[in-house]
């Protein structure tokens, strides 16, 4: 281990340090001060980490081939940190109201982010697996952080059991890969498979196991069953983070392993992925249609979005534009889905869980700017321009058509119509229904409103001027296809 190696992982070190500082500060400060200081500390520390992402080390492998730093790493690091900042910024009022231990909450978000970042920089199955576990184990805790809430407990247990199960499957797949190729680093694995040419029995088993394991993490149907309950039961700000951070990380892993290491495999896996994508988006949307609870609806709709992202993965043979589509969509999805979940925090009242559609009635009058932000996120999730969600759909459909999967493109379009139905139903409730007789007072934290304002503004601005991000995504996708 040399100084250069250390310099290569500055961002991870900084985020870890932030988590530790938050924990210490939590112990030292009294409750009132901590409520103000902890989120500030977290956000400031994460901003420093974000800046350090752009501290340039040469794109190369470090730690004797266990770590790789390239544009892909930087892109995902930035995405993870931005999402963590957003998640931290929307939470303080909720945590204070519900008596959630704030120090642990922020530390968990940082630890999980470190894990996600580790996935992005992994050049080896072992690094990747460690990253994956470092990311998910804090999330199990996060899901159950409201210890007295039985729904949160259910969420945590379900998430933990299925998460552990999927980790085992994934690890088993990794073992098969190791057995076949005698290596754990991606370059050697890819080289071995390329030399081998045609896929044989054992490689197919490994491929299938890895697909299933990562499919659980990303919530691809039929490996999605944990999602709705876990998202629904967890504390809303935790849900907001859970629905985007780990999913983005799962796709980072899918790109690194399925497209990077297993890319040269001489078997057309794209048909399987395409069918999974179609099933995932359709299934998620159809079930979301039937929901009357907004939080649960968003949980199912996040499954549908997994399907759209997976469609781009399935189109891998279209070249870098497929990888870029995954990256761009992951970023866009993170922004708008975290925003949409965070908007539910306005409805977080005593005795309610999530927000039933009825509770949304007349939201547009009771909280005009909050409703506007929510509407923007929903319109973006639908994929209507001029929002980032539309550009994301556009850049996904393009490689899908390039790869000759015209049917999948049509399925995406029809699914967007299905999704429009339930997303717009929320807008209908907010703007076109009158508030109910007794209006419970809405809660609003200042940091919540400010961060939602910034995020919804970004959704529109990046929807009109997406060039720089897409350019970056395109660059980041290059190393995958060498």
């Amino acid at each position, binding site marked *: 281990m040399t100084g250069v190696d250390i310099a290569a992982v500055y961002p991870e070190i900084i985020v870890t340090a932030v988590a530790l500082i938050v924990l210490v500060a939590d112990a030292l400060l009294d409750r009132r001060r901590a409520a103000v200081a902890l989120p500030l500390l977290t956000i400031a520390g994460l901003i420093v980490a974000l800046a350090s992402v752009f501290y340039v080390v040469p794109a190369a492998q470090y730690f004797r081939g266990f770590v790789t730093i390239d544009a892909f790493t930087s892109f995902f690091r930035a995405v993870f940190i931005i999402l963590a900042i957003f998640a931290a910024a929307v939470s303080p009022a909720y945590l204070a109201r519900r008596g959630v231990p704030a120090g642990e909450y922020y530390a968990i978000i940082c630890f999980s982010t470190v894990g996600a970042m580790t996935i992005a920089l992994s050049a080896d199955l072992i690094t990747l697996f460690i990253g994956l576990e470092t990311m998910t184990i804090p999330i199990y805790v996060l899901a159950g952080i409201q210890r007295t809430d039985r729904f949160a407990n259910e969420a945590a247990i379900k998430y933990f059991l299925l998460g552990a199960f999927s980790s085992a499957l994934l690890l088993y797949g990794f073992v098969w890969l190791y057995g076949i190729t005698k290596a754990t680093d991606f370059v050697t694995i890819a080289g071995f498979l390329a030399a081998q040419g045609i896929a044989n029995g054992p490689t197919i088993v490994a491929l299938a196991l890895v697909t299933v394991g990562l499919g659980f993490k990303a919530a691809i149907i039929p490996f999605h069953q944990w999602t709705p309950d876990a998202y629904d039961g967890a504390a809303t700000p935790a849900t907001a983070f859970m629905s985007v951070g780990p999913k983005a990380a799962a796709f980072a892993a899918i790109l690194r392993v399925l497209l990077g290491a297993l890319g040269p495999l001489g078997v057309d896996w794209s048909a399987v992925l395409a069918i999974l994508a179609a099933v995932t988006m359709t299934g998620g949307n159809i079930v979301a249609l039937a929901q009357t609870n907004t939080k649960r609806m968003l949980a199912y709709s996040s499954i549908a979005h997994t399907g759209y992202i997976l469609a781009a993965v399935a189109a891998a043979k279209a070249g870098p534009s497929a990888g870029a589509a995954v990256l761009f969509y992951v970023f866009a999805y993170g922004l708008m889905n975290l925003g949409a979940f965070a908007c539910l925090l306005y409805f977080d009242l005593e005795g309610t869980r999530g927000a039933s559609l009825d509770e949304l009635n007349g939201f547009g009058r009771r909280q005009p700017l909050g409703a506007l932000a929510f509407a923007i996120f929903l*319109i973006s999730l*639908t*994929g*209507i*321009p*001029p929002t980032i969600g*539309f550009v994301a*759909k*556009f*850049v996904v*459909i*393009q490689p899908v*058509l*390039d790869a000759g999967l*015209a049917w999948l*493109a*049509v399925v*995406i*379009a*029809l699914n*967007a*119509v299905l999704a*429009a*139905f339930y997303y*717009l*139903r929320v807008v*209908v409730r907010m*703007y*076109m229904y009158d508030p109910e007789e007794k209006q419970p007072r809405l809660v609003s934290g200042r940091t919540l409103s400010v961060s939602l304002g910034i995020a919804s503004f970004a959704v529109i601005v990046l929807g009109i001027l*997406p*060039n720089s991000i*897409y*350019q970056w995504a*395109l660059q980041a996708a290059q190393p995958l296809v060498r």
Partner: protein
Amino acid sequence: MTNVLSLLVVIPLAGLIPLFLFRKDERAAKQVAITTTFVELVVSLWMLTQFVPGEAGFQLVERLQWLPSLGISYLVGVDGISVFLVPMTTLLTFIAVLYSSGGAIKTRIVEYMTAFLLLEVGMVGVFVALDLFLFYIFFELMLVPMYLIIGIWGGPRRIYATLKFVIFTLAGSLLMLVGIVAVYVASADPSGTRTLSLPDLIELRGRFPADFQFWAFLAFALAFAIKMPMVPFHTWLPDAHVEAPTAGSIVLAGVLLKAGGYGFLRFGLPLFPIGVQAWLPVLIVLSVIAILYGAIVSAVQKDLKKLVAYSSVAHMGFVTLGIFVLNLQGGVGAVLQMLNHGFVTGALFLFVGIQYEKTHRRMIADLGGLANMWPLFTTFFGVFVFASLGLPGLNGFVGEFLVLLGTFAFSGAPPLGGLFWGPLAAIGVILAAVYLLWMFQRVMYGPVREAYRALPDLSRLEVACALPLLLLTVILGVVPQPFIAYIQPSLDRVIRLATDPSFVVVAFK
């Protein structure tokens, strides 16, 4: 100055800023909206003076790099087909806003005006965009404001109507998005460069193989057919119109429906000549069905607003028929018919709204004898009804006559030629006279109802709204030739592009 078109896109957006600043003051909000739409109207008329008639190509073109990594640019321009649609849009929006500020809208004025200004951006943008990506953005930008306008300020069944409107439209436009991306993918030259710029695409359309054109045209045609709407995709229209507030109906009928017909002429015909030929029989049959079906269904409507809505289906049938007979008379007739329908049906919805504001009745059976009390109203309404049924001397006649001429001249391959479809479409003109005159008689004549006796005639504001439309109806009816001179060269080019797949236009660079 050549960036007048961008100015047209930006003015309504700029109007949002004072609107936001005065969000507490409804009077000021109305004034801001009226001023903004008026400035927009003036600039669009000035744009008309900058346009040189007699040329086929795009004028007032502006091109900016926008998404270089995707090869997408901000590209706007107008030709003879769109040059009148833009002022029509700005005029109808101005009238809609002016009328709304007279008291027709009572709640949430600021939000209402915001929606209208955003809608205007989308509508103007659709008619000037020459890059498919940009066009799609404007096409969808029209959707959300109209969704809110119907859903918030509409009638009792507004939520059903607005969701139906949005879902229908989105289903079409998202499939068009797939079509647009498919065109983008197919436009690749050997070096991998791709484009969505319409002039470039027209130049290289030889790269689109026949089966690709078949499907891509279908994807575009579905979006436009739903927007028009063509039978059998028309079912959202009566609901949306009946529930929409008056100003919403004016703009919906006057402008939004035109986006469909315009889309066929601008994108469908020039880009996919082989696809057009393949779908031609279906499209012509559907057009004639729309003309006859729209007329027959209008005749049996009990609700005045619904009657006007269904008459739109019939009128749009003439537009599509004129487009798909693929000759000059038909095409020019279709473009004129789009303008005429914008002015006349916009006006009809305005008068139905005015009438409803006074009597609070829309059922034809509840009305009657209005002519005795409202001479001014009767005169205006009468002229628009006659224009709508195609009385010579008024604008409706010119468009329908040219479309019929074109249809008779049509000698295409479909089961039967123009001599079969022409007379059938002509029956539609007769039916229009039947249902419109019958409606006019039941509503305006007959015994005066006591309840309505004290109601006032048109107010000054209402006259101000209707007068420009009346003038245009007469002018377009009496001297259509100058207008045709603007339209003809561009349309001629589109028809040649559509009928001859090997015809190549080398666009400006």
